[in-house]
């Protein structure tokens, strides 16, 4: 197999209506992956368990995982884009992560 063949089964669809996919393994930036039959080059590296856009979406769209909403997009995303705290916000409670310095919290969402 040539090296640019899409990695088989690298993305997991949890429910048919979902608009995001879950990385079954760490995936490098530039890796070709298959999304609904199309080959997409991953724009960013994606860690195990992280989410990737199944299609292009507008800001404000609800992201569905397990067939259920997990929040709303705060920015437009392209197909294959990494979906996480930088572009997805809770519809309930803000999410807190530790800043890169490991010393203070960053609040995501409810903007």
């Amino acid at each position, binding site marked *: 197999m040539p090296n640019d063949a899409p990695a088989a*089964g690298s993305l*997991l669809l*949890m429910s048919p209506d979902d608009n995001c996919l*879950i*990385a*079954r393994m760490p995936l490098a930036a530039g890796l070709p992956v298959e999304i609904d039959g199309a080959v997409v080059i991953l724009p960013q590296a994606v*860690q*195990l*368990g*992280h*989410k990737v856009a199944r299609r292009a979406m507008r800001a404000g769209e609800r992201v569905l*995982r*397990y067939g*259920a*909403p*997990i*929040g709303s997009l705060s920015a437009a995303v392209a197909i294959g884009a990494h*979906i*996480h*705290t930088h572009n*997805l*916000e*809770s*519809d*309930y*409670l*803000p*999410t*807190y*992560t*530790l800043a890169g310095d490991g010393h203070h*919290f960053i609040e995501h*969402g409810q903007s």
Partner: protein
Amino acid sequence: MSILAGYPRADGRKGIRNIVAVAYTVECAHHVARLVVNAFPDQPVHLIGFPGCYPNAYADRMMHKLATHPNVGAVLVVSLGCESFDRNSLHAAVEASGRPVHTITIQQNRGTRASVAAGTEWVGWALDALAGQQRVPMGLDELVVATICGGSDSTSGITANPAVGLAFDTLIEAGSACIFEETGELVGCEFHMQRRAVTPALGEEIVKCVAKAARYYTIMGHGSFAPGNADGGLTTQEEKSLGAYAKSGASPIAGIIKPGDATWGPGLYLLDVVPDGEPRFGFPNISDNAEIVELIACGAHLTLFTTGRGSVVGSAISPVIKVCANPDTYIRLEEDMDVNAGRILSGEATLAQVGQEIVDSVLAVANGTPSRSEDLGHQEFILTYKQFEPAGPGCHPLRAA
């Protein structure tokens, strides 16, 4: 179905362990109690207690339920002497349950050294007394199993949590009572849960209970979401919730219980761990073990703990079985994990196979095999101030009067 063997108690319940609990009734008695426990490193002597000096009805009730838990065979109460906690009522409750009990009040017992010596002597006597107890046949319909997730990541909701859900369905079918919890981590699942309630009134209570949790956490200014959850690919509270919710399986929800309430027969129960009324004492559960203690106070014989990032905790009183969701975490923390559910993600096992492994693990641990955390000596315990109103009639629709 008598496929287990348990220690019979006067209240009709059976225990899967026969431990001596050493219970301190204020932080000032903690050191003495710990020294007594430390004198029995390889024996079933566990440390529990309440640190506060101010009275709290919830803490009193929890200590009573824990000291008379079916896994407990005898209790040593260690009191300083001037704290608010009612040691006499705890002593009387344990005595009334038919268990050996002894109270040491440090201020009336010549201080630290003499109290440690007296406590150690009594625990040695209690261990000898319990050693003669025979186990009797115990059915799966006498078993109470709890579940909790901690150190969750994005794999938790794909592997370990749905596998525990399948195990729950199997156990409930066999007659066990199973408890899931943490309504703060069920935010976003309330209307789906409502449809699983055995009565419409219970469904309404479930929605109210989650709304209470969302409000409480909003006032606290921080949801039940840790930085490691986001590192592991979870972005929002509701995404974490949906994954956590998978632990509940597919059985109908039989009722809502509050910390210390007993289950009433086979079925799936939701434990409401978020305090009632205006927030007074801080976060509902300051860490995973606070929830585990509440599950145990509801009678749980053992707890299925799913983890993606990799928690290592166990518990006093009831064994904790670790189900590891993430295949990479399993490689790093294999010695701490009982079940490797990450094999589902790597395609080496199916959900059904791992679900059955969890059931097998429950049966083995219930029959006396130590779980990994138990074998490693984990006996975490934490109890803090909280307040609850009794669960309303809508919460327990089919309980026998």
